[in-house]
């Protein structure tokens, strides 16, 4: 019994030691390119073979961590796996945790990339945000959705504001049947809500008595689809027949309307690095905006490629034509 105890203890000890070793490399700073656990650089066999948009001669290696927005996670994860297949020396781990976590971790050097649905300036202090470099990799558009039985199919900005601040509480006030409006909103900390408030409402929504708040798009979709008289908002990638999409000021939420600037409710998906990224990280970020990813995974996941956008928009909402 004692022997087995000692054995178990020694295993614990080994793990603990490994922990210290592994972490000194992984968290040393913003621009660490090699990690104690990654010995694969020398065995890199196929660099350059299929590296569109990257320096074909570079022998890329390193271990990186991207954390943040759970909405962006599937996209980055998929792209990272494709990138790693081409560059076997590079390891990129992608984690969720929310935009706030991502920005905080990249700012403190715990992660190499911070994925965010919002501009860093909206979450971090100005001096911390200034250290971060923004890489916009995709555009996500949002649309107001209602229960399929609601007859309304267009809402103006003012009507939306009235609904989300509690001035209008019945569908008959906006041309629908006599039915109570049930709001399915997001929590005040949500990036999706921030985008919707900023570009669709132009003002803060109220946390009204009796409203439902869910952080996750899947639950919002389920509840809007099931609850009579419900209204919520979803990213375009989540839309299907279980919910009804309403027009915003008469404009339909489509890719073209977003790209040409007529539909305003959209946001950039950001990948932040602290300062300038190193070669391998830069190669990955370049790969994110390459045609292969932009026309492949980005479209498949329901995002709008940045390359398709005919306009650009800065943090204050000023739109300029490309």
């Amino acid at each position, binding site marked *: *019994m*004692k022997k087995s*105890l000692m054995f*178990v*203890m020694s*295993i*614990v000890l080994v*793990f603990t030691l*490994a*922990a210290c070793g*592994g*972490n000194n490399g*992984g*968290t040393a700073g913003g621009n660490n390119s090699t*990690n104690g*656990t*990654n*010995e*694969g650089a020398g065995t890199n066999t196929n660099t350059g073979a299929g590296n569109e948009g990257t320096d074909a001669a570079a022998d890329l290696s390193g*271990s990186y*961590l991207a*954390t943040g927005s*759970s*909405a962006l*996670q*599937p996209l980055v*994860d*998929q792209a990272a*796996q494709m990138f*790693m297949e081409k560059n076997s020396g590079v*390891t990129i*781990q*992608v*984690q*969720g*945790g929310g935009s706030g976590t991502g920005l905080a971790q990249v700012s403190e050097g*715990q992660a190499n990339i911070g994925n965010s649905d919002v501009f860093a300036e909206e979450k971090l202090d100005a001096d911390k945000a200034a250290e971060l470099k923004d890489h916009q990799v995709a555009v996500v558009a949002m649309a107001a959705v209602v229960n399929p039985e609601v007859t309304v199919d267009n809402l103006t900005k003012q009507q939306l504001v009235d609904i989300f601040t509690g001035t209008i509480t019945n569908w008959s006030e906006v041309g629908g049947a006599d039915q109570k409006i049930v709001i399915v909103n997001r929590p005040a900390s949500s990036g999706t809500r921030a985008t919707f408030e900023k570009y669709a409402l132009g003002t803060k929504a109220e946390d009204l008595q009796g409203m439902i708040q*869910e*952080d*996750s*798009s*899947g*639950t919002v979709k389920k509840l809007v689809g099931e609850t009579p008289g419900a209204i919520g908002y979803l990213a375009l*990638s*989540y839309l299907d027949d279980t919910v009804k999409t309403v027009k915003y000021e008469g404009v339909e939420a489509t890719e073209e309307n977003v790209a040409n600037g007529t539909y305003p409710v959209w946001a950039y998906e950001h990948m932040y690095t602290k300062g300038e990224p190193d070669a391998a990280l830069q190669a990955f970020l370049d790969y994110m905006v390459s045609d292969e990813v932009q026309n492949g995974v980005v479209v*498949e*996941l*329901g995002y709008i490629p940045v390359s398709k956008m005919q306009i650009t928009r800065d943090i204050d909402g000023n739109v300029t034509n490309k």
Partner: protein
Amino acid sequence: MKPRTVDKIATGIIMAVAGFIILLLAGFLSYIIIRGFGHISFDFLTSPPQTFREGGGIGPQLFNSLFLLVLTMIITIPLGLGAGIYMSEYAKPGRLTDFIRLTVEVLSSFPSIVVGLFGLLVFVNVFEFGFSLFSGALALTVFNLPLMVRITEQGLRSVPREQKEASLALGISKWKTITSVMLPMAVPVILTGTILASGRVFGEAAALLFTAGMSSPRLDFTNWNPLDPTSPLNPFRPAETLAVHIWKINSEGVAPDAREIAAGASAVLVMTVLSFNLIARWLGRMVYRKFTSSR
């Protein structure tokens, strides 16, 4: 009303309530299992999840859950045994022992979300283990440890006093008595308790959301070097367990068959926990029989 009538009515009500509970439980369990059972296949259990296409599986998640369980137990068992032995054999009655007992009690009733937040603060951020299996295992240890202590104490208490005194009378040291006479005899109780505790670890999600992370990086199941980041054995990789996966696809799943996957994964989870329970019961009964018939 006559007492006899009242008695009949009361008995009827109690029977009805018991029947209702049985129906409720049967309905509950069969709802989960029947809904998900159709989706379970070998492929489902072994293939990796898909983010947006159909046909994703739960292979890595299942592995992560099991591996995390093993890691947690590797940390918990020696610590729990040690503390349990202290509490039942070395501790002298007094203020200090009372205080430790209180600690164990409080620790065991902490909400798992608070344990998870503590893990996020201490293991993930202060010790910089990051979102990893190791952080997750430590967090689970925190709320599994008091259980283990209690189980060990119970096990040692179940050993007949004569056994212990005979050993001590032979001049064997106390520690040796505990480890080579008492512990082996306490094994049945400890084992049963440990398996039941494992079930709890297996289904835990709230404490893991902020410690083990919600993502499962690419795993190379041919790579068994525990130091390589793509190796499934690396304890410092982030890992999404089955319970966390259910939580995630329920809320963020974009795959067209997300709902079926959630149902299938729930069924797998429930069946695993049930089999843990059944194994524990069966094992307990078998060892009990062996002990009572041979002695």
